């Protein structure tokens, strides 16, 4: 029976997804508990901050630059039809700060840092390094995972700030190159129409995105089974889960309008 098989498949899938969500929630709770009292392995934290933050600057900068430019290109038809060059900065800046900037930077961050984190933890898991830590009475959550989660949250916020700035610069450059709008006009348009609230709206989101990328990527990393094939599959699952959670969080945060 095709119908029966389909229902079966849907059920299996639903159970699997529920299990992942449950596992992620438990890991999140364990991370919170490990943060009380907040004792962090300083060296591990600094190492991760550098690896996850500094090394991601080039790709975030490139993404942000193109994103800013794209927003101007998409706004170009209105601007040209209405002959209202002062609107270009407003449209591009608003979209970049509140929505597109944080989302695209988070997606890139998830691809680069989150996926890498899953691969690293996954490799440690399949080569039994986590068991090795446990054998030395070192709690892998406190020692390995908490510094990563903190580093990812901090660094995604920093990268979003940098990215926002570069995106606005990209918007100005593209506006000059494609629409021939002077830098001063774009700048004035930004200053007049954008409020700190727009920027903060994006930053709040990036905090939430960073947390969800961190927890999901760690979860899929420590639950890897089965060698190189398993690591590949885990990274795949991690980026998919991170993308879904970014979109869902974005939706709820927009509605809450924080």
């Amino acid at each position, binding site marked *: 029976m095709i119908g029966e098989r389909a229902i079966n498949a849907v059920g299996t899938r639903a159970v699997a997804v529920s299990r992942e969500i449950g596992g992620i929630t438990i890991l999140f709770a364990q991370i919170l508990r490990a943060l009380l009292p907040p004792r962090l392995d300083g060296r591990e934290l600094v190492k991760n901050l550098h690896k996850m933050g500094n090394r991601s600057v080039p790709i975030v900068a490139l*993404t942000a630059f193109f994103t800013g430019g794209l927003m101007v*290109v998409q706004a170009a038809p209105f601007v040209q039809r209405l002959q209202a060059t002062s609107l270009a900065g407003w449209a591009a800046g608003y979209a970049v700060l509140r929505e597109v900037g944080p989302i695209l930077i988070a997606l890139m961050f998830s691809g680069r840092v989150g996926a890498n984190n899953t691969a690293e933890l996954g490799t440690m898991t399949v080569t039994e390094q986590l068991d090795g830590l446990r054998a030395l009475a070192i709690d892998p959550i406190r020692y390995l995972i908490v510094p990563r989660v903190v580093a990812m949250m901090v660094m995604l916020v920093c990268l979003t700030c940098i990215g926002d700035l570069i995106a606005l610069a990209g918007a100005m450059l593209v506006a000059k190159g494609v629409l021939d709008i002077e830098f001063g006009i774009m700048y004035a348009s930004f200053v007049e129409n954008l409020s700190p609230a727009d920027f903060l709206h994006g930053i709040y989101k990036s905090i939430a995105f960073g947390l969800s990328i961190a927890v999901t990527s760690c979860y899929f990393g420590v639950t890897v089974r089965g060698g*190189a094939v398993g690591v590949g599959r885990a*990274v795949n699952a991690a*980026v998919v889960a991170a993308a879904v959670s970014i979109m869902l969080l974005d939706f709820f945060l927009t509605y809450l309008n924080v």
Partner: protein
Amino acid sequence: MNYLVDRIAGVGAYALGVLRAAFELWMVFVGTIAGIWRLYGRRGATRPPGALVEQMHVIGNRSLLFIVVTVGFIGMVMIYQACLQFSRSVGDLSQIGVQFARLIVSDLGPTLTSMMLATRVGAGIAAEIGSMKVTEQVDALRMSGVLPIDYLLVPRFLASIVMTMVLSILGAAIMYGAGGLTAYLSFGVNPRVFYDLAMVEPRHLGLGLLKAFCYGAAIPIVSGFCGLRARGSSEGVGWATTAAVVGSSFAVIALDFMLSVGALWLFGGDV
């Protein structure tokens, strides 16, 4: 002084590495195109049986739920933000739907759908091919006289082009539907006013489909290239998968930028 020389040497080596990688990526692309000719342009070539249909299933059908959920939500958010922006300034929301339709067809639909596909499909392709590479299955294929690009990449390439275009159309429809619903529920925009395709012209559709085509071609090429470069063991596969997600996502953004600017130049302000 020595430090400076080391630094410059490091930058040079890095640049060389990037150039070599770019060349290899290009060769993968050329090889895939040649592979299509080898498999489908000649009579009597041995094609991997059923591979194309299977890949279309993996890339298309299996991504369906993921695309519906992510693109649906982002469609709602986009229109919510746009309504907020318009109601604060212009105050007139009747134009939102018309403009949104044009933007979805020519850009947001294919681009956001493909960003999501770059994540899922790109990671999947790189993980699969990368695992085969590090477990020597790719070498085993070569020993059987099979070109890995023909056997592994060509079906994924063709399937990805078809399915990215199909899913882009679906994604655009879902965004449009979800956007209209949001505008109605949150801002009371009449759906009859919102769902107005007056501004959408054939060239918008053409641009959107062209974008989907290019994204669909770029994602498997970049990810397959990353997978085939995998070395070592599990960390190699992990690295390949990571690089594939970043690379193919970035390819989507860069292609979007180039095609959008190109269209702007071609059609002027009326894109």
